């Protein structure tokens, strides 16, 4: 700790300047009844070298996906993040700054976030984006409460929103926690056997405040039917579409087919998966939602000399001004990770985004082509087009299959019974820009091997 405390050893001198003789005098206002007795039951202080050594040992015991062949995605996608992103984001001026309350000395981050807003706005096809929420799930949850704030007055199904029944339970749970306080009812949209949205169930959502669907859906399926939703729902129901942002290099931007709010896990643009955080949530919307949306927004302005300058704006929506009437309680967000996103987007450019989307989607197509040929493996939604991932149905449980693949060094995918308990034999297999043809061949080889052990056992 010595290296972190410049005034160690200078305590007496500083206390004397205040007319004090002991540190204890600084804590005289803390009553003895609440004083802690004895030392904290914690280990002794360590040096930087010792901490680094322990960190390498403990974190080295984790299985990093890069050490294996991996097909695990299910909401987080391992894309390559260019080296310059890490080099620049750790510049101290960005890294160690706070929320830009003093815009005159925060122009760098403010401008970078204004540029981020533009990049996201262009990506999703909507005019407004904030500078990030915590993750995709909280962005989705905030979108639902925002839709109710905007629409419940005119809604015939007041305080009611509809979400796809495929929404992963962990994401749904976040939505439920955010919605319950405002007594918002969450109802479900059904899906057809081929994985597409059931349009009859969509018509049940007419008159509600908001409809939440994902494109691609949680099973990787791209659903053309989603482009029809706005026409069915009309202007008094918010269409909320969650996206995998990289897919938008190939797939139409939801704002161009009527989405009012677009959310998503920003992670595939700019961020490693980092055990699920810190990552960043995308939130973009059209004009009617602007004054009731959550999160911080940067506006372009001028300084007293008339020069271009940037600052936070529309703060009257926020907790530090509006307190219990704020649109959200969010204060700290994920600006630094959003900055990584902006840097990645700037490096990609439009054509680079297209190329990245092509790499992700063709890896998925190759996976599908080869898995279709494995005896005993069935692809439930094989007629559809998939981005990043799709479900496969196995001749045994996904749990057993994943354990077998793990024993040969392959992270095989995601056990879908954790989302949909009756689907014990369904596994979600994910392909990204990091997937190579030889990885897929290895998966096929060992998956076939596992299937044959079942046949022998039978």
């Amino acid at each position: 700790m010595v290296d972190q405390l410049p005034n160690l050893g200078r305590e007496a001198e500083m206390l004397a300047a205040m007319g004090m003789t002991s540190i204890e005098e600084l804590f005289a206002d803390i009553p003895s009844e609440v004083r802690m007795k004895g030392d904290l039951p914690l280990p002794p202080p360590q040096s930087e070298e010792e901490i680094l050594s322990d960190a390498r040992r403990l974190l080295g015991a984790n299985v990093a996906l890069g050490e294996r062949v991996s097909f695990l995605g299910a909401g987080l996608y391992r894309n390559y993040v260019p080296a310059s992103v890490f080099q620049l984001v750790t510049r101290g001026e960005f890294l160690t700054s706070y929320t830009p309350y003093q815009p005159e000395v925060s122009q760098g981050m403010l401008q970078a976030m204004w540029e981020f807003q533009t990049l996201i706005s262009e990506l999703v096809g909507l005019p407004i984006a904030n500078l990030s929420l915590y993750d995709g799930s909280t962005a989705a949850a905030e979108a639902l409460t925002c839709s109710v704030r905007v629409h419940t007055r005119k809604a015939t199904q007041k305080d009611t929103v509809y979400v796809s029944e495929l929404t992963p339970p962990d994401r749904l749970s976040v939505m439920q926690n955010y919605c319950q306080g405002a007594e918002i009812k969450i109802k479900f949209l059904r899906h057809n056997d081929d994985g597409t949205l059931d349009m009859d169930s969509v018509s049940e959502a007419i008159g509600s405040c908001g409809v939440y669907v994902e494109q691609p859906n949680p099973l990787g399926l791209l659903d053309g039917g989603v482009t029809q939703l706005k026409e069915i729902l009309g202007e008094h129901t918010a269409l909320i579409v969650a996206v995998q942002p990289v897919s938008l290099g190939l797939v139409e931007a939801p704002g161009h087919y009527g989405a009012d709010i677009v959310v998503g896990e920003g992670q595939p643009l700019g961020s490693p998966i980092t055990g699920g955080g810190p990552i960043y949530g995308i939130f973009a919307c059209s004009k009617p939602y602007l004054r009731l949306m959550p999160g911080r927004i940067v506006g372009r302005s001028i300084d007293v000399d008339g020069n271009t300058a940037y600052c936070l704006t529309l703060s009257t929506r926020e907790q530090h001004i509006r307190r219990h009437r704020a649109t959200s309680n969010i204060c700290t967000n994920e600006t630094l990770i959003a900055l990584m996103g902006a840097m990645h987007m700037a490096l990609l450019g439009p054509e680079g985004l297209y190329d990245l989307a092509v790499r992700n989607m063709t890896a998925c197509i190759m996976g599908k082509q080869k898995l279709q040929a494995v005896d005993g493996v069935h692809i439930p939604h094989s007629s559809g087009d998939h981005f990043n991932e799709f479900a496969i149905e196995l001749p045994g449980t996904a749990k057993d299959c994943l354990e077998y693949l793990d024993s040969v060094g392959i992270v095989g995918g995601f056990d879908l019974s954790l989302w949909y308990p009756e689907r014990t034999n369904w596994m979600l297999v994910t392909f990204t820009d990091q997937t190579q043809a030889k990885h897929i061949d290895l998966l096929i080889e060992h998956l076939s091997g596992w299937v044959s052990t079942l046949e022998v056992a039978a």
Partner: protein
Amino acid sequence: MSHLFEHNGAKGQGYSQPAPVLPASEITLPSGLSRKALPRWPRLSEPEMVRHYTWLSKRNFGIDTGFYPLGSCTMKHNPRVNEVIAQIPGIADIHPHQPEHHLQGLLSIFHEMQYMLEVCAGMDQVTLQPVAGAQGEFTAVRCIQEYFRLRGEDQRTKVIVPDSAHGTNPASAAMCGFEIVEIPSRTDGRIDLDALRAVADDTIAVMMITNPNTLGLFEEDILEASSIVHGVGGQMYYDGANFNAILGITSPGLMGFDAVHFNLHKTFSQPHGGGGPGSGPIGVKQHLAQFLPGPLVGKRTANEDELHAAVDENWYHWYQPTHSIGKVQQWHGNAGAIIRCWAYYRRYGRGLRTMSEHAVLNANYLRHAIHKATKEAGVDSLVVDGAEAKVAKHEFTLSLAPAKEAHGISAMDVAKGLLDMGYMAPTVYFPLVVPECMMVEPTETESKDTLDTFATDFAEVLQVDAETLHAAPVTTPVRRVDEVYAARNLCLRHPYDDE
């Protein structure tokens, strides 16, 4: 003045990518889903991109640039080894859905962090899932809400918040569906027990309070406040924003609290990165533990066949609390921030108390030095303490009300004057109970020399004439920014030529 969208090379991709595994012609998309026009993103080569963001970084002020006494925000130095650790593939490249035997290192660190926070806070169980302080507040109040629902105490519809509280407190409680009862503070910002007694009844679910409070003063009557709230069956919630003042000295548990959130990024260390990420774990007493968001990390003795993947004699595993409220973030919280804070706490270990002592020493020393310097410069009549107090804790408030009255110099004018001196300005106009408030938090990582120089410079700013200060800053990348113009002429994205 340049911006990203001025860069429009022919096809100058910033980095070249390997060929796809199949030609793009293999791709089919459902009807109507093929993107018609790519986003109008700029086209930059890597050198252009690097220069753009380096230029932007030079127009930004961080702790690394200079003294950052932003009250309430705890802008301490961020040790760089933490950034090195956060890049280790065993944290950067792991997926939350990997099996437990892939994540024993992570789980053991999570377990250690749960334990460390429990003993520091005097709580029985910690969850690391909330990703920011405000989300921690929301999560804890949700847990208490479920606790009362299970007990059939549905009449508890109100949450008490002092008027000096952080805005997130009422916002978080309101998000849970509670009605907010705001009670006035005394003139020193401390809790008014009579005001509390007047509203305490069996409709109260929670009282949310920060201690040291938002003026940096310890609530000496905290046990009495806890007793009043518990007396009517309510729960006490500790806003941990100022926890860095009291580690190892007292704890929320000893003060009678039932639940607490930690701002890991402030109390320990995670670079704030222009507004985030953060990390907002919560700790609760046993009666609330079953409601926490899951999964939590537990441990048992490792079996023989598990030892190859274990990091010690224990097996660390996830488990779900019995009446869990569910999740507040889809994954396991901000694992990367938790690792950094683990590395930070390890530097102090059982010596965390020394960290808090130095935070408080520095704050009191700076408060004293400012008063001394302003007196020597003959401007002590322009600034007074925000609240009467013999000692402050980790931060203190000043009021520029006399300067405003005498010369029309506002707290904001002084803040802008300090920017010209090469400092980040203290927090201004919070807490609202102090007129022309300036809240100063030096943190434990500033040297005595820095504090002395700042005090002298502060006094110098107060000697500047009003007209000059109104025009400040003049040395910054831009001069005073027109926030009203920004709100009235909304420009939230780059206006393309055809718009």
